[in-house]
């Protein structure tokens, strides 16, 4: 199978990229996502209930959900995985819109015990959305990322108490569950959930990290630029989609 443009990630940037590629008259556009619905991280975190994909449908793009790009090699030879098994394909151009990521506890080199109840904002809200249960009762939110306020509000709506929203913490205490954190000024705050809500930074999963250097691959949205709002992510995805379509067109003519 040969696709003109493969778009990985059906979040804001990926949907915009797929649509833009299609409108720029790239023939076969495939949009895939690991999740079972569109909307990317925001949908998984319950920060947006429904991504409108009717524009995609009108443009003739039917996203393939629960589908992963597991390998990508030079010549944009691809391996996709879904419940149908592994599938080999070739793309003329690829847009990676797989989302950014917050710093983990390990990245922040945050000392202390290693208990349950220490989560990134993304993990905390994904848990709440997937299980319908909150990941803690008394919460300290640390970090100034775009999700810091949203995570606090969502957890509060789910019945948790917000003990503090702070720029950073200095140490984690408690076992087997966090019982308190020590702030940078030495004060202690009791909690049973620490949410790390630092700014999103650009990121690709390890299996795709090398792909950014391949000709014909375009990285878009928070995966490329970190902290973006929805409008910026859509604009970035749209630009990447147009570039990918142009690349695919040149590739088609060259062959």
């Amino acid at each position: 199978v040969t696709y003109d443009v493969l778009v990985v990630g059906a979040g804001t940037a990926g949907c915009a990229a797929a649509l833009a590629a299609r409108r720029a008259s790239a023939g076969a556009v495939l949009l895939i996502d690991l999740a079972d619905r569109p909307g990317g991280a925001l949908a998984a975190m319950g920060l947006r209930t429904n991504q409108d994909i009717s524009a995609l449908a009108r443009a003739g793009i039917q996203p393939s959900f629960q589908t992963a790009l597991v390998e990508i090699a030079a010549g944009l030879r691809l391996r996709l995985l879904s419940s149908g098994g592994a599938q080999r394909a070739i793309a003329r151009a690829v847009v990676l819109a797989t989302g950014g990521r917050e710093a983990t506890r390990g990245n922040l080199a945050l000392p202390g015990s290693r208990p349950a109840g220490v989560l990134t904002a993304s993990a905390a809200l994904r848990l709440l959305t997937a299980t319908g249960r909150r990941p803690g009762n008394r919460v300290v939110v640390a970090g100034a990322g775009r999700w810091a306020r949203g995570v606090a509000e969502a957890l509060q709506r789910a019945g948790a108490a917000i003990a503090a929203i702070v720029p950073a913490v200095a140490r984690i205490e408690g076992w087997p569950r966090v019982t308190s954190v020590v702030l940078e000024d030495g004060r202690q705050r009791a909690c049973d959930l620490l949410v790390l809500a630092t700014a999103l930074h650009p990121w690709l999963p390890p299996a795709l990290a090398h792909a950014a250097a391949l000709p014909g691959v375009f990285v878009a949205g928070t995966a490329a630029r970190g902290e973006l709002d929805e409008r910026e992510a859509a604009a970035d995805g749209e630009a990447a989609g147009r570039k990918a379509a142009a690349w695919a067109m040149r590739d088609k003519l060259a062959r």
Partner: protein
Amino acid sequence: MIHGQPAAGGPPLEIYDVLVIGGGVVGCAVLWALAHYDLRPALVEAESDVGQGISRANTAIAHTGFDAPPGSLEARLVTSAHRRFADLCADLGVALRPTGALMLALDDEELRQLDAYEQRAALNGTLVERLPHEAVRARWPYVNPAVLGGLRIPGEASVDSFGLTIAYAEVAVRAGATILLDERVTAIEPRGEALLITTTLRRLAARYVVNAAGLQADTIARMVGDDSFAIAPRKGQLCVVAPADAPPIDSILLPTPTARTKGVLIAPAAHGNLLLGPTAEDTNDRADWATTAGGLAGIREGVRRLVPALDIRQPVAQYAGVRSVGSEGDYIIRPAAGCPRMVHVAGIRSTGLSASPAIGEYVVEVLRDQGLALARHGTPLPRRNPPARVAGADDASIADLVARDRSYGEIVCLCEMVTAGEVRAAAHGPVPARTLDALKRRLWVAAGACQGAQCIARLTALLAGELEGDAAQVRKNVAGSEVVV
């Protein structure tokens, strides 16, 4: 058979031939060694999974024993285990990365110590090679240019330490052994030809008991009135770095220990990351598994001394382990004073992983000396086929897996390329993974770059389904570590 809970309505008293207390790598290796005989062995573990104590946090190196004190039981068992370690890993389906090790001398004192280690290796019968400055720099150009010389120990290797512990346990269970999890031993009393063991969940009887309780080995010994030894905890902090953030280090790099400092090492792990550490901090607190800013600073300084370009900018994770240092220096493997039906396996320090197969077989011999009747099974234990993995599998194998269970086509953890099918299989394996950390030790799921940020929700929902319970019952590890409330 795996028990997590006692049968309803008051279970009958179980009588085992041998009960192993402690499901670390040593206890599991003893159970594995016992499983080769016509016996009824069991293992009881206080935590929710095997390998969750000392064995969960180490440098995951299978040592040759080149630096063990010559003539010690430790030297004998580590060197003996080394000779068969590659075959063992192949039989048990455990990843082994034969990197070899390189000990670096950076000043004159270390160069003198290097001589001493070379002589010690000769006494232990370990193959080593002395390398001059030029040879070290030519082959490992990223090491400190100030290096004066090196000692190459080609037999040192990195091993999947979680995998080895689990493999021992799985093979034993498949051969008929019983593993009791989430169950702490609280009392032991001799009763005729057996020992009566009280746990937090039930009473058990065993003809023999093996005390492989790690940091609690002295506590268990005291239960039968043996206070002949004590365990001192020693904390070691480690740091994990992704290979993409470091020079292409393909050998274990060791500092030359001196009277001044033992130093920290760099180990390319079997799974691909770099492990840096450990610190060595004597502590009075067996439950102190916390990392500190000072510990990380020490590791940072130590590794840059070996490889100046290795800057720990964005570590994947930090963790700490607590080793059990016995009061006698050497391993303590002997019948308990005044209670010959209990055999201690204590003070295994930091070489338990390396010596484990030899420790297991040595303990069997000690039990035989104490009167345990031993007859080998008619047929040898089969090789262990490790669970099917999608990452690295060819299209045909994936097609087979997906035909068996469509969830092998659903990626759950993108960092480590783990599917829902693999998670489900691990939850129903011979030693079932019933917590997120247990899944991590079997599949490396949530152990990658994002440390579970993207997959913990899906994993929790999946595990709740496999445990036939509610998400609120899913734990990170022990009771009290529930993921959601």
